[in-house]
């Protein structure tokens, strides 16, 4: 049983060092716009590493990164691992499904044991909201925690890579109309995206999705809930589709995937309502024919694959920043 502190979704100055330096990345909440801009600028540098013959820089040589994925992940885990190896860190990928935690070891004991192995940086994904925050509260001074997704709370590096992708395409974000579509209620991606896009000055931020998957009082976050996907797409520059988790498909929440696709699936016809230069994004993995048509996912407006490459650069930037010494 997890302690109640684990469910706390409040970001605190915990993620910032005493000198204002980023120490852990747990949530977008609590980050300054200046710091976010620094992460995005830093990622530009790391993007060029992918074009080198030797795709590596020596910044984290001698440091060790552990990917603690208590919840399955393919893309996020691989891009965190690639980010660490491209920074020349040593990387551990313990299989948490087979690890001591299955034998009853608590997360704190896991943390303490791995700290004793001189791990410098932990990338944590967990199905419980607040898991990364909990570890950061108890981590030793020399250790940093990066949240790679915790329950329905936050997925800050996904939001950062999305903003980075938009900035690379459009230059600045403040004049953009951005639409987020899907399961807003349970989506840690949406929560982090909304916080970050508001921080970066997006004024017209629209949400569309089934009313059963829309949080109450979400307008107080500075977004507009639209009555239909068509309304939300009108003139949109950026369409951010969310993955529909199959477990949500049960009578009370959603009648069927077919019904969902009819109302909230993005197809070429609906795309014609958006701005002619609109881009389509998706955090993956895609449910083709459920939230998005293949012709859109693979079409000229799609930036879904560049998002993956950009994710490596963002994760390199964040790792390099938390590994920087105090001023």
């Amino acid at each position, binding site marked *: 049983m997890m302690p109640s502190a684990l469910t706390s979704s409040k970001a605190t100055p915990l993620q910032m060092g005493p000198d204002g*330096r980023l120490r852990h990345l747990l949530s977008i909440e609590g980050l300054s716009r200046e710091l976010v801009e*620094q992460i995005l600028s830093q990622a530009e540098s790391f*993007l*060029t590493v992918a074009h*080198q013959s*030797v795709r590596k820089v020596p910044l984290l040589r001698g440091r060790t990164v552990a990917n603690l994925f208590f919840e399955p992940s393919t893309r996020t885990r691989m891009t965190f691992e690639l980010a660490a190896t491209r920074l020349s860190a040593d990387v551990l990928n313990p299989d948490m499904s087979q690890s001591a935690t299955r034998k009853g070891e608590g997360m704190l004991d896991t943390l303490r044991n791995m700290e004793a192995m001189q791990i410098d940086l932990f990338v944590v994904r967990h199905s419980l909201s607040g898991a990364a925050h909990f570890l950061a509260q108890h981590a030793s001074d020399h250790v940093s925690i990066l949240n790679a997704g915790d329950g329905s709370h936050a997925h800050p590096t996904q939001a950062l890579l999305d903003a980075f992708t938009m900035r690379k395409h459009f230059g600045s974000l403040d004049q953009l109309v951005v639409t987020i579509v899907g399961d807003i209620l349970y989506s840690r991606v949406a929560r982090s995206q909304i916080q970050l896009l508001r921080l970066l000055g997006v004024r017209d931020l629209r949400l569309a999705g089934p009313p059963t998957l829309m949080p109450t009082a979400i307008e107080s976050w500075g977004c507009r809930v639209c009555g239909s996907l068509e309304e939300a797409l009108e003139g949109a520059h950026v369409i951010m589709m969310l993955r529909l988790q199959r477990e949500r498909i049960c009578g009370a929440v959603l009648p069927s995937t077919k019904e969902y696709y009819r109302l909230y699936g993005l197809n070429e016809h609906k795309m014609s309502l958006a701005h002619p230069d609109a881009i389509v994004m998706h955090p993956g993995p895609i449910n083709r024919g459920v939230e998005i048509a293949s012709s859109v996912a693979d079409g000229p407006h799609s930036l879904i694959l560049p998002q993956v490459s950009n994710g490596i650069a963002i994760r390199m930037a964040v790792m390099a920043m938390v590994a*920087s010494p105090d001023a």
Partner: protein
Amino acid sequence: MILLNHSQIEALLNNMAAQLRMHLQEEQAPVYMLGIHTGGYWIAERFYERIGLKSELGGLDIHLYRDDFSRIGIRYPVHPSHLPWGIDNATIILVDDVLHTGRTIRAALNALFDYGRPARIILAILVQRHGRELPVSADIVGTDMVLPDDQHLKLYGPELLSLHQVTRSSRS
């Protein structure tokens, strides 16, 4: 304290361009110029105009290769590297504003070799000063200066260039 004003720097660049032409007289390989961000890039922009290369000017960011990351961390602002050509078997003119300890050039060479294997690298420097900590020497030099150890050279630009003597900060 200002040590070189814009027109003095321009005069040094004219002299450096003459030196570089001598170096390139018999050159068979493709020639590309690369400035080290940020001061070296400002110098390279003016040097490039004088040489009249047809290839695009490149910029190299060395901060990911610095040997003092664990002490000073990331620096801002960031200027990503831009190498618009392949460097394999090419002659690279590597340009920087100041050559002091040699550590920046060490980092630049490491960065460069992660892009490929150039045929030759020519190092062009506006100002070199004593205090080398690594076996690095420039092929083309604008001028030499002698400064006390606690003094630092800083190029201001990019429109009007000027070289200043400043007291070194503990984190530089």
